[in-house]
């Protein structure tokens, strides 16, 4: 018997595809959000920062439950999607992406926010006095200076999505090839008493997580040197 079955490999591939998609979406959404949180003086800054941070403390099942209600055929978003003629999100890959984006949002926004705040006002003012418009300053000063933050955000977002279970279970079900991700596959193996397979997959995740965090901590001292 091979170490990894076709189903295991399928789950592996699906998980990587999910994590990559979610990371890309999160960087696209999280960057303007973190920039806004870092720059604004609006009184909504704090409440919105708290909403972004909520998935850190909420049980994933609670989050998944509400998302299921919201995205389901009777939920506000679900009805909107149906009205636009799209297929429903729950129990699809798209649903997994949406749920994972919400769930991993703080892991991307927080490092970006920290990185943007660490730049301070000065370099941006200097750029303004050298004729750079606000958007120009964002791309030519803020983003390059926050590069270590982007790397941290991408690694954390990717790794966190790889390992999630509760949200994925609630919103995705456990459909082979469609929504059955690695963590779910491990759960199935353990339930079926297939400890060797569970070991193999678990070890894969463990090694991956270790490598991701190690890579991040290796990147950190370099950032301090630069500052």
């Amino acid at each position: 018997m091979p170490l990894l079955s076709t189903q295991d490999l399928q789950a592996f591939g699906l998980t990587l595809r999910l994590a990559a998609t979610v990371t890309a979406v999160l960087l696209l959404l999280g960057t303007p959000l973190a920039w806004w949180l870092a720059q604004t003086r609006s009184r909504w800054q704090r409440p919105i920062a708290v909403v972004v941070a909520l998935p850190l403390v909420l049980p994933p099942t609670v989050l998944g439950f509400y998302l299921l209600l919201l995205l389901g055929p009777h939920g506000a978003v679900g009805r909107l999607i149906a009205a636009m003629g799209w297929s429903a999100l729950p129990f699809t890959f798209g649903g997994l992406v949406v749920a994972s984006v919400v769930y991993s949002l703080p892991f991307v926004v927080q490092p970006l926010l920290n990185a943007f705040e660490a730049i301070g006002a000065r370099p941006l003012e200097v750029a303004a006095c050298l004729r750079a418009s606000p958007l120009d300053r964002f791309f030519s000063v803020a983003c390059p200076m926050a590069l270590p933050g982007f790397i941290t955000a991408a690694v954390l977002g990717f790794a966190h999505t790889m390992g999630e279970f509760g949200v994925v279970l609630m919103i995705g079900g456990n459909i082979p090839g469609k929504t059955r991700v690695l963590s779910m596959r491990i759960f199935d193996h353990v339930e079926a008493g297939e400890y060797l397979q569970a070991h193999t997959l678990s070890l894969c995740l463990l090694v991956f997580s270790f490598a991701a965090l190690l890579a991040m901590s290796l990147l950190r001292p370099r950032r301090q040197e630069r500052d």
Partner: protein
Amino acid sequence: MTELLAPNPRQRDDSRGLEATLAWRRGALAIELDIALPVRGITALFGPSGAGKTSCLRAIAGLDRGSNGTVSLGHEVWQDSAQRLFVPSHRRRLGYVTQEANLFVHRSVSGNLDYGYRRAGRPKHIDRDALIDQFGLRPLLGRRVDALSGGERQRVAIVRALLSDPSLLLFDEPLSALDTTARSDLLGQLETLHAALAVPMIYVSHAIDEVARLADHLVLLDAGRVVAQGPLQATLTRLDLPAALAEAVGAVIEGTVVGHDAHDHLTELAFAGGTLLIPRRGDVVGQRLRCRIGARDVVLTHERQSGSSALNQLRARVVAMAGADHPSQCLVQLDAGGSVLLARITQRSWHALALAPGSEVWAQVKAVALGT
């Protein structure tokens, strides 16, 4: 002053420089700025620490939006609070240089220099190569900025600002974070720049020697208020300046180098009131040079002294006298052949010499007091 008001080809407007009437609060300090600056030349914004100098510069640059009033440069209105008009900093065409160079750490030296130059559209009338050479930056172009010395950083910051084709230069204590050697080098380069400068500059400083060597026009600031403004020489020799500025008052003589004494390392400077011997600065004959004579460094006598170590003795006439910040002292305004001098002497000496407006005196100045 007038000889510096040469026609400026780049300024569409002719007669009006920066005009600012602004009021705002910075913590406990209420700042009121009301200034009208010449079209050309360097205006020093001078005053003690905490007078609000940097705040004024930031308000003019549009970096702090809390102020109320108007700011305009020539015909361009930058701020008019009554009309709710506020032009953001990036459209004001500024060249802002701060105490710390604030270079972009993610760019090389040439990346920093070209940041504003590119955004200004690489204007034809700006000679990028000449500026780079003038400030000795050629060998540094490929370097990372964190490998530069303090003086090098500041030179990069200055050229970066000049390359962005500014219509107004704002320099905020650009020399105060430098060591003595770097400071004196850069001060010399700024003097050279001054002569070639086509746009007005506001130069914030609390060091009177920088102001005396660079500025044409002076705005004196104390506790958030403009206490005096006008041409440099006339303003620094006023008798009614507040006590906080007492150390700064004195004459600034602008003269021509007529010779050097190589043996004694002295430079002879001719000006309207005679000649001065000053410690050699390495200047060439014929060059215009400025020299500050602090009010504290002037001794008054009735007769020309033969047995004095003071190398400079100038014939002068007493114009006016006013009490100084300490009751024992007074400030005497003198006219030396058209140049105004200021002497700070004791009330006792004033009476002992029986001085009065119109008295003829000799003003003695130690060459040692006239710069290093």
